[in-house]
């Protein structure tokens, strides 16, 4: 749990550095997000006059939901102590609960910015979440379990070969991860123009320590998604069960390498395309949903043939 908490801002810093470099800037240091968090934690919170108790408690709850979900995802080893308490469906539902609270917090102050963010967020979620659940269904059909550690173990074993459904599921998963984490082309994490905001619009009223927690939760969510993609589709170097200390170092190194590669690829991808119009996003997510559904259907009809 502590590892994901410490690594998340570093990943965000790396992605920003890559994007800055591609824009021919020097960019802030990769440790800047830590400094940002420390700065925000020290500032006083400015609350709107009519902000309610929900607005004040939501950042803590959002952070807690995201942190618990991130702790259930194997990073460099599958032997997490309590991984059996929640499977992939529970992880996605925990992230959905965080998003539910964030949308409500956006509606709380009663400005049009919050409404715009919340309504667009639930529209994106109404397509991204089913696509994610269909990806989980197809993975569960291949691996015989919805438990993430079991899926990772299965993918490392020789029983998992190259399958069409896996490729379709990977594409759908990546598209959904981009949508869920508010990256370009679905949403711009660096913008504050109202026509382009989704996630930023919901958190516009937050400041100080509340904003710090929400930013950390967003970084954690990105780390969670990348760790999930890494441990399912690229499980090289993952430590299965108990092992000697040397294997753990190798696993840790492999994990750090995967995060670095994923961050760099995400940065390059974000720099190479522009943000989509809001009502083109359902086309993209609908495509991901269809791919995931196709993956599940293929598995359903191919078993027993």
């Amino acid at each position, binding site marked *: 749990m502590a590892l994901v908490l410490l690594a998340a801002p570093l990943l965000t810093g790396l992605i920003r550095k890559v994007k800055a470099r591609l824009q021919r800037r020097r960019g802030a240091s990769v440790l800047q997000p830590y400094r940002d968090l420390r700065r925000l934690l020290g500032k006083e919170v400015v609350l709107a006059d009519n902000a309610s108790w929900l607005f004040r408690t939501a950042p803590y709850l959002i*952070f807690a939901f995201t942190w618990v979900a991130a702790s259930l995802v194997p990073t460099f080893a599958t032997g997490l102590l309590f991984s059996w308490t929640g499977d992939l469906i529970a992880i996605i539902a925990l992230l959905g609960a965080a998003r539910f609270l964030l949308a409500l917090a956006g509606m709380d102050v009663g*400005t049009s910015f919050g*409404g715009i963010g919340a309504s667009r967020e639930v529209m994106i979620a109404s397509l991204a979440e089913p696509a994610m659940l269909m990806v989980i269904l197809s993975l569960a059909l291949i691996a015989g379990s*919805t438990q993430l550690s*079991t899926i990772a173990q299965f993918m490392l074993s020789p029983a998992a070969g190259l399958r069409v459904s896996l490729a379709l599921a990977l594409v759908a998963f990546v598209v959904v991860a981009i949508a869920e984490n508010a990256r370009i082309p679905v949403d711009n994490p660096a913008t504050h123009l109202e026509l382009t905001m989704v996630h930023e619009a919901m958190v*516009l009223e937050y400041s100080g320590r509340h904003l710090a*927690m929400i930013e950390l939760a967003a970084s954690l969510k990105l780390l969670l998604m990348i760790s999930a993609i890494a441990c399912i589709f690229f499980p090289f170097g993952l430590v299965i069960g108990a092992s000697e200390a040397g294997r753990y170092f190798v696993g840790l190194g492999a994990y750090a390498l995967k995060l670095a590669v994923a961050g760099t690829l995400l940065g390059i991808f974000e720099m190479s395309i522009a943000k989509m119009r809001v009502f083109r996003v359902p086309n993209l997510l609908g495509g991901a949903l269809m791919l995931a559904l196709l993956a599940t259907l293929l598995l359903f009809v191919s078993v027993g043939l």
Partner: protein
Amino acid sequence: MIVALLICIVGLLGLGIAGVALALRPLGRAVVYGGAAGLCAVIGLLALVALGRPPSTIVLPLGLPWVGAHLRLDALSSFFAFVVGVGGAGASVYALGYSRHQEAPQRVLPFYPVFLAGLFLVLLADDAFTFLFSWELMSLASWALVVSHHREGDNTRAGYIYLLMAAFSGLTLLLGFGLLAGATGGYAFEAMRAAHPSAGVAALVLALALLGAGSKAGLVPLHAWLPLAHPAAPSHVSALMSGVMTKVAVYAFVRIVFDLLGLPSWWSAVVVLALGGITAVLGVLYALMQHDLKRLLAYHTVENIGIIFIGLGLAMAFRANGFAIGAALALTAALFHVFNHAVFKSLLFFGAGAVLSATGERDMEHLGGLIHRMRLSSFAFLIGCAAISALPPLNGFVSEWLTFQAILLRPGLPQWGLKIMIPADGALLALAAALAAACFVKAYGVTYLGRPRTAAAANATEVDRWSLGAMMGFATLCLLAGIFPGVMIDALAPVSQALLGARMPAQLVLPWLSIIPVAASRSSYNGLLIFTFLAASTWLTAWAIHRFASRAVRRGAAWDCGFPDPGPATQYTADSFAQPIRRVFGTVVFRTHETVVMPPPGDLAPARIEKSSRDLVWETFYAPVARAVTATADTLNQVQFLTIRRYLAFVFLALVALLLALALWQ
């Protein structure tokens, strides 16, 4: 055991008579609602005790002289009686406070206990006559409650359509029971269980059961009465109708298809799965387009009925393929959702009733900012919204998780229809769940959050202690059912054992109280630990922040980009919140169309936006039938105005035709 239940039901009928006598006195409310709460609680407890025991039967010398009234309390009836008991007790406690401001209590008080009695009698009935009598009693009592405020709005039309659909459901169930009884005429359920109808008759009975029970439960396309009738009734009755009566309709379907018909065929499972999936998605899409709070909740009931029928369809599919344990898992998931929905839908209707009694408004566009004025009820409503959106660690998530596990259980079923329908249903279920969360962000955000849009919302006060007690009680029940799901799963084991011959593995013996539906290697979920982790993380974060970070808070104006905010009209309304989803889904499903009329430059007239949408289910299924009936009636009406010579010729021709028929018959 069954005698005790019958005594309580007679007690409820007695309360109905007492309601007639005491209606206009303040004592009447306390007697009727307090008595109903007590009796429902007793029945619920008795049913819980009876779950583990063998079935008990009784034959009363009432009704038809040569048949009598057969009543039976077995595992399925006990479980549903428990659900109805919980729902009825909660609604009665809520009504103790809510009905204080109700005008015309004499139109509600006599019928309320009779409605409850009818609900319980349907569950106990063991022969077709008693079943249909209780079904009609339930329908008529609830119709009287729906039209109790007949001068308000559209309530008479709602009651009329409700009565038509109730008569339709009674007729189809009558035909179904007639087919099941067959030529021998054995109307007792025992005889129907022993008889094995042919495949054609079984298909017809299933179709009639789907029509009859489905129209009462709210399956698309038979759902049209639900969003009209449920909001028209007083809020405690709406909670009963949505949370409990629809479940009694589900009971009727389970009883006929799983118990009386025997082994279902695989293609009937495909039909049920298809209807369930379509109902789930259409219900929530309709709900997203509403801005009347109670109508939104009523449409949402349609969605949850769809989810229950998806579970039932899966159980039928697995049973038709001989996979009894899978059928047990699917049936347990469906019945767990029956309980969950009864609890959180009642809670949500209680909240809507609280809003209505505090502000006099049902329309979300006139509300807002109620979280500051109605603190406790807004908290309870939030728990209800989170539960119905299937968020962990509450109970809605557990039943949806179990349904997904049932979908994943056996992809290798041999029939192609099932191979395609089950993953399609998985996608539809996922879509319905995501849209439900969107719907309740809208409902809670527009009603309770933001700034008040009218004076009524700005001056709302918290409701009384009885209503709050009922709401907080149900909210606690949502949390408990989510944290300890093993209790409910083990309680449902006798039901699936009796109906399917198999049960899910025992859950309460598992370490840490997790639930493992199939095998530990496949999947497991621990609601208690997830809740503990969430609570611990929240507390730890709050402590760490308050210890090491700044604690200062300053109040200021909301961010307005430098333009002073003109007023609460600038915040998002229910329609504007739903606009992205309406544009994505509504253009296909409802043929929504938006036109913007901009005045020419220099003109001071405001710009206008017009939205139009069509209810395709109404236009395809209901409007043509209504037109055909009206046209036929108009044509046949001419028979009323014939001359005497034509009437005499009519009588003569009828006599000749009947004599001919008699001659041909011989």
